[in-house]
C-alpha cells in the first residue's frame, strides 16, 4: 500500500510536508482532502505552486477521497493524504475503515486551544474527537517531521506544550 501516511495539519501543504516528508520519503503524490479547497480554483492554484513538479497533487472532498482511495492505494508511488482538521479526517475514517494510523502533524495555536506539544494545540472538543478516532481502532499519534519519534495520543493529551 503506497498511500500509508494520513496526516492532520492545519497548514495543509507547507515546508514540513513538501520538504520535510516529501524528500526523505520520496513522496510521489499528495492528496489534499478539504471541502473548501476542492471548491476553489484559486486555493488549488495556491497549493499547486508550493509543490515541486515531480510531485502530483490531487484535491478531494471527503466524498470523492473515499471513492478514489482504492485508486490512490494502487499507485505504486509513496503518497501522503492531508486534512486540515480532525473532523475531516474523522469523516474520512468513517468512510474508509482500513485507515490504521492517523498522524497529527500540526494543529497550531488559536484561541481556546491548549498547548499539548510544540506543534499541537487542542480544544477539549478536539481532544474528544481524537479520542473518538482512537476508539474506532485507529492508532492516533503526533509527529511533525520524519526524524522525530511518533508520540502516542495518550502522551499527547497529557502534554504541556514543552515537547
Amino acid at each position, binding site marked *: 500500500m503506497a498511500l500509508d501516511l494520513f496526516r492532520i495539519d492545519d497548514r495543509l501543504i507547507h515546508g514540513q*510536508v513538501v520538504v520535510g516528508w516529501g524528500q526523505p520519503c520520496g513522496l510521489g503524490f499528495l492528496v489534499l482532502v478539504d471541502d473548501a479547497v476542492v471548491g476553489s480554483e484559486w486555493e488549488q492554484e495556491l497549493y499547486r505552486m508550493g509543490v515541486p513538479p515531480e510531485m502530483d497533487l490531487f484535491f478531494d472532498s471527503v466524498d470523492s477521497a473515499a471513492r478514489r482511495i482504492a485508486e490512490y492505494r494502487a499507485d505504486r508511488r509513496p503518497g501522503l493524504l492531508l486534512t486540515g482538521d480532525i473532523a475531516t479526517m474523522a469523516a474520512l475514517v468513517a468512510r474508509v475503515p482500513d485507515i490504521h494510523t492517523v498522524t497529527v502533524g500540526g494543529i497550531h*495555536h488559536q484561541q481556546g486551544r491548549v498547548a499539548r506539544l510544540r506543534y499541537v494545540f487542542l480544544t477539549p472538543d478536539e481532544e474528544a474527537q481524537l479520542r473518538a478516532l482512537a476508539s474506532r481502532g485507529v492508532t492516533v499519534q503526533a509527529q511533525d517531521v520524519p526524524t522525530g519519534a511518533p508520540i502516542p495520543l495518550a502522551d499527547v493529551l497529557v502534554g504541556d506544550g514543552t515537547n
Partner: protein
Amino acid sequence: MTTNSPVRAVVAGHGTFAAGIISAVDQITGLGAQFVAVSNTGLAPGSIEELVRTALADSGATVVFTDLPAGSCTMAVRRMAKLAPGITLVTGVTLPTLLAFALGADPEEAVARGRESLMIIEAPRGA
C-alpha cells in the same frame, strides 16, 4: 543596531530564520532596522497572516521576504496579496539577496544579486 533607517520589508520564515538573517544583515551593514522579523513557530495559518499583516501595516512596508516557496509564511502572504495586490513577495530569500535590498536594490535587482551569489566553489586541485 542602526535605528534611524525606516522599515522597508518584513522577513518571515520558519523558526528563527528571519531574526537570524536580519541579524546577519545588521552585522554586515548596520541596516538591520530596515526589516521586521516574523516567525511561524507554533502558529496557525490565520495567525501567521495576521502577524504579517500587522507588521506591514505598522511599518508601512510593502515588501515581504520569505524563506521557502512552499512554506506557510509564503502561503499566508500569497493569500494576503490576493486581497491587497500592492504587496511584493520574494520567496527563497538568501543573505546576498537581503543585503542587496538593504543596500538600496529593488526586489528584482536583489533577487538577481542573490542568484548570482549562489554557486559551488571548488577547492583548489591538489591542495
